[in-house]
């Protein structure tokens, strides 16, 4: 039961990061190695605001906005000029990730930091005792994910985004500007990752290298679910989320082995089914 409840909460947060990563690939054909940095920017910006004495809610909002802004800047300044050179985009976005890492280290040092919890104490759900911050994070993430999915599937805007992902050129012929859609999706994806960073900041730890694990997990999810597939991303998030918590609970020193298991999932999937397990399902 522990694993089930915790797994669900973790899945939602992970999906928050992975969805943006996957959408940006689907819509713009861009694999953004700086995606994990949005997670970090969200967390550290919220932390920086709370240090100045700002209310936590304000800090959280600032964190999300900062990540979104970072997404816009990344798209405009770095990705747009080299959009059609796949390898250049990969290298440039990795360089951005390291740049952000070195910036964070410059301002905050390598020490671990933590954001105060939005709520404190524990709550018992289905007989499982949980930290309230984790529950809050999971619930907010869940609501956000559902909202994003509804927007994608039920609104004209979402329809347009999916159209670009399915056939960029055809979308051009009906008067869509894929470049703009990519910018919006990247900005929103960055905001979602930033939100995940803010939500996990009270119970995770903030370090300058914290961007790598969410990026790896997003990659594992996208590989499992198929690059660019929305249902695949959601489903794979659940798999990786549960795996994450399962390992954390059942293996000695599980918490530090999570990343290892994620990489094992990646490599296994790549060997068994390189197009992902849901790669061909309609997106």
């Amino acid at each position, binding site marked *: 039961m522990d694993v089930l409840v915790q797994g669900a909460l973790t899945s939602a947060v992970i999906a928050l990061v992975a969805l943006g990563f996957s959408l940006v690939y689907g819509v713009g054909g861009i694999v953004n190695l700086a995606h994990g940095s949005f997670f970090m920017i969200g967390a550290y910006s919220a932390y920086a605001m709370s240090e100045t004495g700002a209310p936590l809610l304000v800090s959280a909002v600032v964190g999300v906005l900062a990540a979104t802004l970072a997404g816009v800047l990344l798209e405009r300044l770095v990705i747009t000029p080299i959009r059609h050179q796949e390898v250049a985009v990969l290298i440039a976005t990795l360089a951005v990730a390291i740049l952000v890492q070195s910036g964070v280290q410059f301002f905050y040092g390598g020490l671990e930091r933590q954001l105060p919890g939005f709520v404190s104490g524990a709550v018992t759900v289905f007989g499982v005792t949980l930290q309230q911050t984790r529950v809050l994070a999971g619930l907010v993430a869940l609501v956000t994910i559902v909202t994003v999915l509804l927007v994608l599937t039920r609104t*004209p805007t979402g*329809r347009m985004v999916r159209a670009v992902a*399915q056939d960029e050129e*055809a979308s*051009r*012929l009906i008067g869509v500007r894929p470049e703009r859609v990519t910018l919006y999706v990247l900005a929103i994806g960055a905001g979602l990752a930033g939100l995940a960073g803010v939500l996990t900041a009270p119970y995770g730890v903030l370090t300058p290298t914290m961007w790598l694990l969410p990026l790896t997990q997003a990659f594992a999810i996208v590989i499992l679910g198929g690059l660019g597939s929305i249902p695949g991303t959601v489903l794979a998030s659940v798999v990786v989320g549960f795996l994450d918590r399962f390992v954390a609970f059942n293996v000695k020193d599980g918490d530090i082995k999570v990343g290892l298991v994620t990489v094992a999932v990646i490599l296994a999937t790549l060997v068994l089914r390189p197009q992902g397990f849901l790669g061909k399902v309609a997106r």
Partner: protein
Amino acid sequence: MSSTDRVLSVAGLKVSFGKAQVLDGIDLHVDRGECLAVVGPNGAGKTTLLRALSRLNESTSTSIEFDGKPLPDSAYATVMAGLVHCPERRRLFPGLTIRDNLELGARRLRKQPDTKAEDLERVFSLFPKLKERASQSAGTLSGGEQQQCAIGRSLMGRPTLLLLDEPTLGLSVGVKEAIIGSIQTIKDAGTTMLLVEQDVNFAFRCADRVIVLEHGQVAREGPTAQIAADPYVKQAYLGVA
């Protein structure tokens, strides 16, 4: 003929891919309400011509006037100006429903009074099959239905000029006939068309005028009857000695 009746006039259109000159100085014009067909062998540059006009391909030209103004440079702006391209191989959004596909075609009119429902009814009455399957995803349609959906999607944008690329490609004879019928209906309703077609007989049935494109240049041009009677065309395209 007054210039206001001229929807499109192209002068000196050139497209090259690397060293290959695919279009080498094309001049053509389309008048309001008429259907101009472009025929020619594979690789003559027919599709490239349409892609250049809808600004999917880079091109150079002396001038391109569309609807009394210079044709804009970006794909987006040409669509907004009313030049709508129904591409080769349908290019539907396979994961979206037919209704979604059609409604997306109306994006160009989103800043104008809403005519979507009205236009949707028109498309559905033209292609009743699409109405039946409106909530199926477009990827599940047969080839002919996909073509209907693609044409319908283009019509939803109320095009000033409709570029139609190979609408009968890969279809069986019966399905082809149905598509030809609906294209004639669309033309009779007053839509100006630039039709690219490999099936010369079909092109001659729909077109008011015909251009024969060979090696990136205009080889013949004239009213349909004149082109159809041309001995060269007869020999090369109609298989008549």
